[in-house]
């Protein structure tokens, strides 16, 4: 089964995630919040970002963050047990704008680490979750608050614009 873990706080759900699969988050001293690890023998893979021509304003050195150990049995479980709003990126492997967002989300998760948890869902591996939330265009981003969709938008955007959107959204209802 393929698992991918990026150095940021994003979780990428493994292929056979269903209610009977137990997942354990592993801690790592130099990476940010939750990482997922299969309890069965599975190679861990880091998805390397495609070498795109140097873009924007991405800072090279970001301070390391504490990681947490958590066990989830499903996406619903993850949503229910999160103490922060969850930012979900619905993507597909060969969707250009989705790949464009990979470094953007790394930067955003580092800059907003206390405010939000970033999760990526491969819609081809988890079609049922994608169908549940009526995902059509990719990428679609949904911000979950208290386990329920709170904001939703589509299309790639820069890190600054994305942070602006997230902060505005989360500050609306206080």
């Amino acid at each position, binding site marked *: 089964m393929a698992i991918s873990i990026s150095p940021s706080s994003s979780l990428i759900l493994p292929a056979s995630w269903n209610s009977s699969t137990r997942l354990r988050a592993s801690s790592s001293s130099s990476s940010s919040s939750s990482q997922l690890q299969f309890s069965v023998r599975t190679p861990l893979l880091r*998805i390397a970002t495609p070498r795109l021509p140097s873009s924007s304003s991405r800072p090279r050195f970001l301070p390391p963050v504490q990681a947490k150990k958590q066990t989830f049995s499903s996406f619903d479980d993850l949503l229910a047990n999160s103490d922060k709003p969850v930012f979900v990126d619905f993507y597909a492997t*060969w969707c*250009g704008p989705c790949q464009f967002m990979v470094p953007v989300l790394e930067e955003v998760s580092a800059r907003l680490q206390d405010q939000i948890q970033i999760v990526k869902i491969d819609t081809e591996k988890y079609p049922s979750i994608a169908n549940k939330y009526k995902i*059509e265009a*990719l990428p679609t981003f949904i911000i979950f608050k208290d386990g329920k969709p709170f904001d939703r938008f589509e299309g*790639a955007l820069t890190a600054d614009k994305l942070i602006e959107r997230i902060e505005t959204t989360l500050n609306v209802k206080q």
Partner: protein
Amino acid sequence: MTSQASTFAVSVSSAPSPLRRRGNFSVVRAQVEPSDKSIEIMRKFSEQYARKSGTYFCSDKGVTAVVIKGLADHKDSLGAPLCPCRHYDDKAAEAAQGFWNCPCVPMRERKECHCMLFLTPDNDFAGNEQTITLDEIKESTENM
């Protein structure tokens, strides 16, 4: 069909080279890398269509490369270049129906390409090129 192929692709989706030497070659291949022939066809199509429609590739050519590969992948698995930037209930049915086959109806009617493959000059992400080489495609997607 494609979604089944993805589910049964046991091997890791982002490490094509070692996988190709193992068994389940056809399953892995469908999941991992589109054929060179289809990539070339979609590359040529993209260049021609950008010229014809007066649109430009993304200033970040990596985006262009990924979409071209996505179109090639669907051409291989479905027989038609279904838009890779959408989630579908039934890919085969969509490919047969045609609305989302590249160039899709929104693109043909309104020059709207949410894949960021064909960008009108006023778009923030638009570059100034209407060409992309096979080398550019390979290099910018080699780490996927």
